[in-house]
């Protein structure tokens, strides 16, 4: 009950030291459908489950290319995500125009985080209601970042956000030690296996409701097309992480 006394705006702290508006914004991220990312030494893979508002509608895309070397997967308010996506794309273009090279990934995530934090410290603004998984490659290596409405950001080896993402994270906890040396194909299969853990019993993975994006040191960001998705989902039947251990 006390919660409601301190949650009107971002400029009010609670006695426990919380900003409730920011916490509520993080809830919006948890309501979005699951998206996850995982990286090896050479590649990053983003997988997401697309939602269909109704049978008449198409599926909502969740992955957006920012630049050849960077992409994001979103969970939460898509409209807010578009604003951040546009910002990131503009920053990358400007950087390329000035320096003729790719925007360092960590630096762009920092800029997004700074922008997000701004919204948490004003009476007239609300935080962005979207969490991003930012996958990118730069001279510092292969990166996967998560950003939050609070303005925090973290670097991960693998991470899942959105609804029922805990199931995917549990899968990651068991197998992430294999990811570093995985091939691109193994990485994709791990990602799809993790997503499979997070779907409801009556749902199934197919090439329409799953989105897979891949990025590599010599591979610009691309989405797997419908046929490739079908093939990988078929391979899931015979894929087991245990077999990867035996290979090494």
């Amino acid at each position, binding site marked *: 009950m006390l919660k409601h006394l301190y949650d009107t705006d971002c400029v009010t702290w609670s006695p426990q030291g919380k900003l409730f508006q920011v916490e509520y914004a993080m809830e919006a991220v948890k309501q979005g459908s699951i998206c996850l990312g995982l990286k090896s030494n050479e590649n990053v893979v983003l997988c997401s489950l697309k939602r269909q508002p109704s049978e008449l509608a198409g599926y909502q895309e969740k992955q957006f290319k920012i630049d050849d070397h960077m992409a994001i997967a979103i969970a939460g308010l898509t409209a807010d995500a578009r604003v951040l996506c546009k910002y990131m794309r503009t920053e990358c273009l400007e950087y390329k*125009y*000035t*320096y*003729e*090279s790719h925007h*360092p990934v*960590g*630096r762009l995530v*920092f800029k997004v985080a700074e922008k997000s934090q701004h919204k948490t410290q004003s009476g007239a603004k609300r935080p962005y209601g979207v969490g991003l998984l930012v996958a990118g490659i*730069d*001279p*510092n290596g292969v990166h996967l970042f998560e950003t939050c409405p609070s303005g925090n950001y973290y670097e991960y080896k693998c991470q899942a956000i959105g609804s029922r993402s805990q199931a995917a994270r549990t899968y990651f906890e068991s197998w992430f030690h294999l990811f570093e040396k995985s091939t691109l194909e193994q990485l994709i299969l791990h990602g799809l296996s993790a997503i499979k853990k997070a779907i409801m019993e009556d749902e199934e993975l197919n090439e329409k409701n799953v989105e897979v994006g891949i990025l590599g040191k010599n591979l610009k960001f691309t989405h797997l097309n419908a046929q490739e998705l079908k093939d990988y989902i078929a391979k899931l039947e015979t894929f087991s992480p245990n077999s990867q251990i035996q290979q090494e």
Partner: protein
Amino acid sequence: MIFNSEISGQQQHTTSPVVTGGSVIALVYNGGVIVGTDTLCSYGSMAAFKNVQKIAQISKNTIYASSGEFSDFQQVVKELAKIDRSALQYDDGVHPSPKDYGNFLARLSYKKRCKINPLYLQNVVAGFHNGERYLALVDIYGTYLESNFITTGFASYFCKAIISNYWNENCTLDQAKQVIRECFKVLFCRDCRAHDVIQLAYVDEQGTHIEEQERVDTKWDFNGFKFRANEKLHTQ
């Protein structure tokens, strides 16, 4: 004294340089890039400031030199240093490569050219990054050209033949140094605004090395100067 620009509030534009530096010669060699300049800043035709270092170290593996208005050179050094410091601000250990600096300078020069208020410089950016040599010219208009050898100012007229004949991109450091010294020897003889004290700097895998100033060898004790042989004809 009230200047016209103060009355009308007009922006002044650089139409001609005041304190100028001479030619820059830069070559790649086997293992790095070397840049040479003389150490003179001229005030018109007066050799006003000698012993001036005109090669600046921008970062661990990038150096910058230019010919033209020296105050613009100093300003560009500050601008490029600002970028290097941004790595500190973002705390991410990402440092610009020499190519990033070269392109930034090209964009800056082009912007100022578009406002008809240029940085009155021919710029040379040189560096060594990820095992690759980098050398680029950015001119007063913002034209950006990467090349294996670069000459600015009078060196473009007098020295290209020497470079063609005695240098190739895989020569040793000492060979490259000799070529540059020979070029500045010729420049001192032929370019009124040149000086015989030069400075060399090179970037290789280990980083940047800026050498002490040195005087080029020149010969002035020709018989014609010593004994004024031609005068005999006129006094007869």
